[in-house]
């Protein structure tokens, strides 16, 4: 029945010992090396862009509203995003910035978005991670947690309706799992056997609320059998582990077998948003998890496996810094939209 919960990398809750993947999953192919370097690039780009937003632009008062970053969680959008096809439909959540870069959104558009400029993806109408682009098959979240899940279920149903073998991917946090929409959307998708891949970033907090106050089960994946769907628990700070799980999940969905849940164990290495000092998080958790930084782990692995040199890695970071500098420059020069646009586009006709 495929309803078993497969645990790839141990149970990481609340604090974890992570193990490396098994050897065949890290076969040293050229493809693998390439994937590794691309993963590193996107993770580091996400980190850098978010650092600039949260620790510079926000503190300089240049960001219009709130800031939510995915520090420490970059492996999740990157590993899964690189497993998606361009024709797949993506429904990111608010800590999945890398998905936008993978889909070709430029960092400058993101900076402009945060600063409310006309050059942002929502042209100043909405803020921060509330951005989408239908041409790139990137769907903007609304604030209400888990609201994307029924919508993604509908996209997956449409894919099936159209007889294509694409997949709809939806990302969400541990807290989002408590919402009615989470349940309704997954239930509908599983009943319809729609090609939906569900990716939970279980970062063990929802704002100030720890998992123990969010759910009475041990793992989000424990819910999968209740929907007759398979699931996997994966080390969310290991980008290749996430990637491999995502490839498997997508293959399942594309084969017409219905939804598949991936639970990525990770940790939010920041406050809920830029204004939150996260005093409620025991310090040792930050320390333990900082050892598991997905970027540093990937770098080490690249070196260990001979997938790249220190110089190549340094060049990746240097390139990102250049790109980011330019992007901020561009975004700061992007004008605000004109007030005369206020009334446009509420309706199409």
């Amino acid at each position, binding site marked *: 029945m495929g309803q078993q919960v497969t645990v790839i990398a141990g149970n990481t809750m609340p604090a974890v010992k992570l193990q490396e993947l098994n050897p065949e999953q890290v076969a040293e192919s050229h493809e693998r090396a390439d994937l590794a370097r691309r993963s590193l690039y996107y993770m580091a780009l996400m980190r850098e862009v978010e650092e600039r937003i949260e620790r510079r632009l926000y503190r300089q008062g240049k960001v219009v509203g709130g800031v939510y970053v995915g520090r420490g969680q970059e492996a999740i959008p990157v590993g899964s995003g690189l497993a998606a096809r361009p024709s797949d439909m993506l429904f990111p959540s608010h800590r999945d910035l890398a998905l936008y870069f993978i889909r070709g959104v430029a960092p400058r558009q993101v900076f402009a978005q945060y600063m409310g400029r006309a050059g942002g993806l929502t042209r100043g109408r909405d803020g921060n991670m509330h951005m989408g682009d239908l041409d790139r098959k990137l769907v903007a979240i609304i604030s209400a947690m888990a*609201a994307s899940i029924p919508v993604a279920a509908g996209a997956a149903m449409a894919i099936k309706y159209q007889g294509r073998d694409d997949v709809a991917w939806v990302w969400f946090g541990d807290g989002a799992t408590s919402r009615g929409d989470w349940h309704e959307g997954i239930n509908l998708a599983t009943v319809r056997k729609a090609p939906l891949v569900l990716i939970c970033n279980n970062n063990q907090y929802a704002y100030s609320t720890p998992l123990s106050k969010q759910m009475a089960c041990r793992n989000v994946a424990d819910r999968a059998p209740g929907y007759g769907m398979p699931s996997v628990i994966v080390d969310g700070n290991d980008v290749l582990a996430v990637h491999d799980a995502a490839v498997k999940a997508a293959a399942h969905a594309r084969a017409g077998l219905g939804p598949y849940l991936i639970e990525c164990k990770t940790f939010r290495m920041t406050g809920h948003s830029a204004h939150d000092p996260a005093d409620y998080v025991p310090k040792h958790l930050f320390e333990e998890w900082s050892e598991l930084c997905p970027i540093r782990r990937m770098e080490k692995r690249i070196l260990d496996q001979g997938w790249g040199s220190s110089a190549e890695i340094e060049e990746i970071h240097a390139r990102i810094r250049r790109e980011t500098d330019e992007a901020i420059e561009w975004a700061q020069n992007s004008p605000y939209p004109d007030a005369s646009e206020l009334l446009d586009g509420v*309706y199409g006709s």
Partner: protein
Amino acid sequence: MPSTYVEAIREGIREEMERDANVFLLGEDIGIYGGAFKVTAGMLEQFGERRVVDTPISESAIVGAAIGASFMGLRPVAEIQFADFISCGFDQIVNYAAKCRYRWNAPAPIVVRAPCGGGIHGGPFHSQQNEAWFTHTPGLKVVLPATARDAKGLIKSAIRDNDPVIFFEHKALYRRVKDELPEGEYTVPIGKANVFREGKHISVITYSAMVHVAAEAAGRMEKEGVSVEIIDLRTLTPLDEETILASVRKTSKAIVLHEANLTGGFGGEIAARITEKAFEDLDGPVLRLAAPDTPVPYCPPLEEAYLPNADKLVEKLRWLARY
């Protein structure tokens, strides 16, 4: 042969499904059962399970899935079994569907059909007329046909519309009103009111089942020498202010009539617009007739006392005529 309101809607949906392979239906019990009110009877047989999707009891997922499918180029027509349950899918409608075009230029061309209204002894949870929640939400179009002819023409327009349309079908009309439908293809535009009956002395601005209440009252007033004009709004948002104001400028007196309870109902909006924009033309206060501010009660004497009817309207018309 005249068609009933329910047949007209069914015909409209069927024609659109035949015309456009992207149109599909989803909702509870709409397949083999044909829907609680049989609006979709025969659809499963004609279009198959792919295009007629029975869903679990999940109003939020029904609306959400419709939105998601619309992003993929489909034209979903979702049925909420009773308008009373639309509150279970409320967030998806008012926050997701209504705002995605404005926010990031992502149209959500969905239709949410919801059988509404009282007079069928449904009690507090099978009688609601709750359009006012949606008329306050920019980005939604809110349509409530009163006749079979309009019902068919408007459901077709709703399906073709590029914005989310909340389509309220009045349950008490399904089998009670009939029209000889035009031969061949026709649509009725969203956003255009209809002068249902011309008159000279008082304008009654109304919509949905209350159009027929107004017609009855107008007939009675005619015998008293008072000529009543009836404006059937058909669409509440976007509102056809022009037709309303033209009528009131002509008659100089207006009553707004709706079945929903008074306070916070759409009648306030109409009365306010008339007063603001036709103040100089008014020869009397704009009155409202609506249900009282209670849930819809179940038993006949209470429900009768609750619902606006021709007697109550005649009383207001007489008062205003004398003003």
